[in-house]
Structure formats: C-alpha cells, structure tokens
C-alpha cells in the first residue's frame, strides 16, 4: 500500500483565500472512524496592535501544497494519527480574521495535542508563505522570520 493510498481521505491540505469552518472540519475528522478518542486543533488569527490593519499573505502555489502535504504526512506517521487537516489562507486578511487551521485526530489525547503543536511550529518556517503587514499610517512592511519560530520548528 502506498503512502497516498494509506492516507486517502485522512490527510487534507488546502491553501485558499476563503474562510474555513472549524465546525465542519472537526465533524469531518470525527466521522473518520470509531477509534478516535480526541481531536485537537489550533487556529492562528491576525493579531491586532501597534496600528496593524491587515496582513497580506503571499505564497508559492504548488510548492506550498507540496510542503504542507509532506509536513502533514510526517505528523500522521510520527504521532500515529487517525486524521489530520491543514488549511492556510492567502490574500489580504484583516485583524481578527483566522489565517491558519490545524487539526489532528488520534486514539489518545497526548498524540492529538502533540501533533497539533508540531504542525503549527513546523508550518511557520517550513512552507513557502510570506506576510506583509499593513498599518493605519499606510506603511507596509514584510514580516521578518523570527528566530524563536525557527528554534521552535527545529525543536521537533
């Protein structure tokens, strides 16, 4: 059985400008099988402050999906997941809008929680997305990668 067949329907990766629906994504994982004991999730949000108005999310189409799929497959086998989902939005997102959603379903809670933490840490510096910040005064600045994010990703 190939990796792709083994994980068919169990790993979902999407890059989209549209909003996502946490309830819908949770229900989908819940329906995969009876052996699921827990579903963990993390949702990243455009955090306000210092006059930030919006983020502009740029990505490398194709490579982005590939990188997220490799990452999701790594989490799937490393944490013996039953299912996992990674959705990342692109385009202009206002303060308060969700950017990213990661979900992991597993037999036991520790695996689901650890997989979620792993996925969001690695996704920060391991998939080709770039953020530009737009401020109330009209300034526009590319976000520099943070050394603590690179350290968190390397910690796994």
């Amino acid at each position, binding site marked *: 059985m190939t990796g792709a067949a083994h994980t068919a329907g169990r790993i979902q990766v999407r890059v989209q400008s549209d909003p996502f629906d946490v309830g819908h994504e949770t229900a989908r994982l819940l329906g995969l099988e009876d052996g699921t004991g827990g579903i963990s999730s993390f949702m*990243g949000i455009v955090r306000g402050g210092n006059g930030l108005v919006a983020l502009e*999310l*740029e*990505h*490398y189409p*194709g*490579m982005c999906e*590939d990188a997220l799929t490799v990452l999701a497959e790594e989490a799937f086998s490393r944490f013996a997941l039953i299912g996992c989902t990674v959705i*990342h939005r692109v385009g202009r997102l206002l303060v308060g809008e969700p*950017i*990213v959603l990661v979900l992991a379903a597993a037999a036991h809670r520790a695996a689901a929680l650890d997989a979620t933490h792993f996925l*969001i840490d690695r*996704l*920060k*510096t*391991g*998939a*080709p*997305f*770039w*953020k*530009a910040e737009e401020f109330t005064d009209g300034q526009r600045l*590319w*976000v*520099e*990668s*943070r050394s603590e*994010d*690179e350290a968190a990703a390397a910690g796994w």
Partner: protein
Amino acid sequence: MSGTATILYFAALRERIGRGSETVPLTADVSTVGDLLAERRRQDETLEDVFAQPGRVRVAVNRVLGDLSTPVHAGDEVAFFPPMTGG
C-alpha cells in the same frame, strides 16, 4: 547544454526586483543554482543590487528547497525568496 530555466521571485525579493518571474537561457557555464545566480547578477543591474543587499535568501529548485550547490537543468523552475513566515 541548451534550453531555458524559469526563475521565480517571491515577497520582498519580488517587489525589489520588480517582477515575479523570468525565463532565461541556460548557458554551458551554468550547472548549479550558484552559477545561475552569478550569471544573472552579471547580466542584470537590478539583480546585482538586490542580491548585494544583506538579508537571507532561500532557494527552491522544482519546488524543493535547495542551496547554491543544487544542480540546475533545462526546464527547471528555480525560485528565490526570503525566509518563510507562514502561520
């Protein structure tokens, strides 16, 4: 050796260079990412200026992360971009 490669630029690099992609001929001198970049910097003043600025640059060849020593062949897609900041 003949043929072309597609070069992509993303984010701050794309904005500074003023374009997101270009198709360039691959000369016999070019066998790695490092060769290609050196040749393009010699040929194009804007590229020379942008790549001379301090700041880390990442590269991917055919959508897989690489470095200056990664081989480049005709038909390849070579992308230059800043460190990634997703999530």
